[in-house]
């Protein structure tokens, strides 16, 4: 076994040192009845080459997905990832290390965590960010739990125009914690129906751009909520051109960090972004890196404000999270550093431009129209003249991927498709898509 280096002579010498005559004796403390019931999996050992072949064959079964032209979105988007990003993140000093429990030999991880927190604060317009959560959905759930801790009211409102997978996870966490979740409808504009926000809530979770692609106008929303916390799920890339939720007084900003240099990875690993105001620091979940000094007075980094965390506070911790998405956070940090503020703006404008180019062409097709007239970023909902499931299948046969329309049907949009457009979609692909969609009967 290539990964287990010891040679028989060493094993014998080690057993002799312990005073045992066989390796089986090492397991004398496991009850015989348990050992007697053991059944193996039936898996035979395989060579590296054979395993490589098996995995390549499985990957080939997904070939049509990868070779198609994708308009899939919903929080995860088909972005170009510069080569430098994976080269840096592949350094084994980063990826084979663990949580920086020993800061003196973890300055690489800790400095990058500190940079990551700063970048998240910059994008979101907030005071303090943690070093990541699992994904956007669990970040929403943790934000709701935090709002309940702050407000002491076990009632949360969530906009129905928040991604379905965010709301699903929120429901599970809330059910277990005994928190009531009230859904708030959207208006004809696709924006949150502010008149329907209930009172007596710990917080409101909203999203911008929302699950319908519409950019919410958050102006005045915090004032309407009063003491209840305003939680905004934001698309990090859009914030290169859009005002940050912090500018509108958000108390917590969360988001899915996949657009920042991570492949879609069939949905994992992802990157949960979480930031809040200084006044809620002690209520925040997750790990945080902070700046400090060493014995010589030189600047360095360490884990900070850990008294909120599970390994110290036990059952009174702000969360149970330990392992998070550290390597994904490093990847996002390198990605943002590779683009810089200028590259990020250029990228956001490309997304904005291509999405609007496609939207205008599609809206001009007979029987088609944009479902909402509010401003959008790189994702929008298109009304179609016939059964969207059939259209989806036909498009798929032509090599174009669009999402299952079912979640839109649940939101009352019976004949509609949600389309996401990134910088990777060429004009040629967009024009072809318009031609084919227009030709479907």
């Amino acid at each position, binding site marked *: 076994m290539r990964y287990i280096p010891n040679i028989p002579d060493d094993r014998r010498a080690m057993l002799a040192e312990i005073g045992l005559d066989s390796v089986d004796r090492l397991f004398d403390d496991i009850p015989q009845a348990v050992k007697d019931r053991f059944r193996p999996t039936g898996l035979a050992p395989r060579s590296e080459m054979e395993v490589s072949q098996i995995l390549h064959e499985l*990957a080939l079964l997904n070939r049509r997905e990868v070779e198609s032209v994708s308009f899939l979105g919903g929080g995860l988007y088909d972005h170009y990832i510069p080569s430098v990003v994976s080269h840096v993140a592949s350094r084994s000093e980063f990826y084979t290390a663990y949580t920086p429990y020993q800061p003196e030999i973890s300055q690489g991880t800790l400095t990058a965590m500190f940079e990551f927190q700063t970048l998240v604060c910059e994008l979101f317009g907030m005071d303090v960010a943690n070093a990541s959560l699992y994904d956007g959905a669990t970040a929403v759930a943790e934000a709701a739990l935090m709002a309940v801790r702050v407000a002491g009211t076990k009632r949360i409102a969530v906009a129905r125009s928040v991604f379905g997978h965010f709301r699903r996870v929120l429901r599970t966490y809330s059910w277990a914690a005994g928190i009531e979740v009230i859904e708030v409808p959207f208006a004809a504009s696709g924006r949150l129906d502010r008149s329907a926000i209930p009172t007596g809530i710990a917080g409101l979770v909203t999203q911008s751009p929302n699950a319908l692609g519409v950019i919410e106008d958050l102006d005045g929303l915090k004032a309407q909520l009063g003491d209840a916390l305003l939680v905004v799920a934001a698309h990090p890339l859009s914030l290169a051109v859009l005002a940050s939720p912090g500018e509108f007084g958000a108390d917590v900003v969360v988001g899915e960090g996949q657009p920042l240099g991570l492949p879609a990875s069939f*949905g994992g690993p992802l990157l949960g972004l979480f930031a809040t105001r200084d006044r809620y620091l002690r209520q925040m979940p997750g790990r945080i890196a902070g700046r400090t000094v060493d014995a010589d007075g030189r600047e360095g980094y360490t884990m900070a404000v850990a008294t909120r965390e599970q390994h110290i506070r036990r059952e009174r*911790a702000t969360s149970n999270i330990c392992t998070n998405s550290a390597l994904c956070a490093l990847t996002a940090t390198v990605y943002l550093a590779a683009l810089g503020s200028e590259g990020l703006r250029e990228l956001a404008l490309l997304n904005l431009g291509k999405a609007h180019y496609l939207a205008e062409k599609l809206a001009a097709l007979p029987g088609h129209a944009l479902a909402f007239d509010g401003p959008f970023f790189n994702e929008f909902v298109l009304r179609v003249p016939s059964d969207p499931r059939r259209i989806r299948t036909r498009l798929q046969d032509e090599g174009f991927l669009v999402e299952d329309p079912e979640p839109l049907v649940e939101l009352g949009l019976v004949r509609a498709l949600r389309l996401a457009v990134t910088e990777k979609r060429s004009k040629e692909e967009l024009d072809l898509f318009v031609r084919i969609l227009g030709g479907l009967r």
Partner: protein
Amino acid sequence: MKTIFDHVRTNPTGGLFGPQDVPHVDAERLIPATLRRTSPPRIPNLSEPELVRHYTRLAKMNYGVDDGFYPLGSCTMKYNPKITEDMARLPGFAALHPLADETLVQGALRLLHEMERHLAQIAGLAAVTLQPVAGAHGELTGMFLVKRHFQEQGEPGRTRILLPDSAHGTNPASAALAGFSVTELPSGEDGLVSLEALDAALDETVAAIMLTVPNTLGLFERRILEVTQRVHSAGALCYFDGANLNSFLGRARPGDMGADLFHFNLHKTFSTPHGGGGPGAGPVAVTERLAQFLPVPRIAHDGTAYHLDWNAPRSIGSVHSFCGNFLVILKAYAYLLQLGDQGLARVSEQAVLNANYLQERLKRTYRLPYDRLCKHEFVLSGAGVAEGVSTLDIAKRLIDYGFHPPTIYFPLIVKEALMIEPTESETKETLDAFTQAMEAIAREAKGDPALLHDAPQCAPVRRLDQTHAARHPVLRYPFQEQTP
């Protein structure tokens, strides 16, 4: 410590994206002024060589498994095979979107389905969810399942979780997050669950016990069958924390010990890299009875094709955006296929042999509070090595000898704990070198304790002031605010 924000020069960036083949858009036209960003986020614009040198310098200040011995107890810092990294980068996996039609992602669904089956066999349980993405997330999912089980049974009064005092730090927080209260069980003198304490704690308000097997002292619960039998007789469930599975992999199964729920840490036992603190994967295996409550979507196979099955009315719902950390699961799958049954058994054999050998060598110099056969790890006490020397000093001095220190001050039931887990990846040569370093440090502690107090001397920074960080929190880069 220079951060990217300390690079003040602004370079022309650009050239990453394009061509700009659609007409240029005017953000001013498309987005109303009130919704537009007015000042850009402060992200430096670095050239690629500056960027690469910055992060290469940071990487060199880190210590990973590829750098050397990393005996961090309960974290199973084993070697991460390189082929699994390559497999996870295949475009046929990495580029897959979770919302693509299931007919187009059959390879991914098949991999997940097979991994569920293999993990169920390894656990000796009926069904598995791959959705949880970390150990603590698996625990939380497990607690949700326990809650749903008693809700369905019509026993909402079962609101307590029993936790031995040697439990992992995440266990109590996971139980609390799921709305349970926690009752701590004191360990017996042998470091194991005390049956008397267990009997005293069990009643109709107990929902489950959370057991770490072997426990955080590295000791196997010899009376495990008596423990689980008593819990079941009281109508409660047995949750097993699988962080320490490396110790009996391929030789015993939690299901055969009485576990109703068991979580894996694929980033520990199945060699997926820890990534500086994630991403991981924490699949949960359960009995037939509990399978109906598992998170949706389930991965189903109808004989010809794989599907995402959302039709599970009793499910707890979802705990992750999609199907869990697919690429982490994939790496664990590639590792498992290489090992096969023989390899699994070899892993636990060598892991336990390494731990017992190291325990035997080190107990001559350091106090071993529970002196007997251990499993994959053991706990020494740094107390009594020398006057005025703490476990923290010993740990920091180990850095000067080129080793990553063990887990320290955990478990809490051992004073000045040093929790050491060598894993199967290490040679006798490495274990001997570590022993010599530990012996040398014990001598230094008596003869020249300043060497320990001033450690580390050979790290990128000297000992860092944790209280300073707590008292004056600087949690993001302090930009010079725009002065007029």
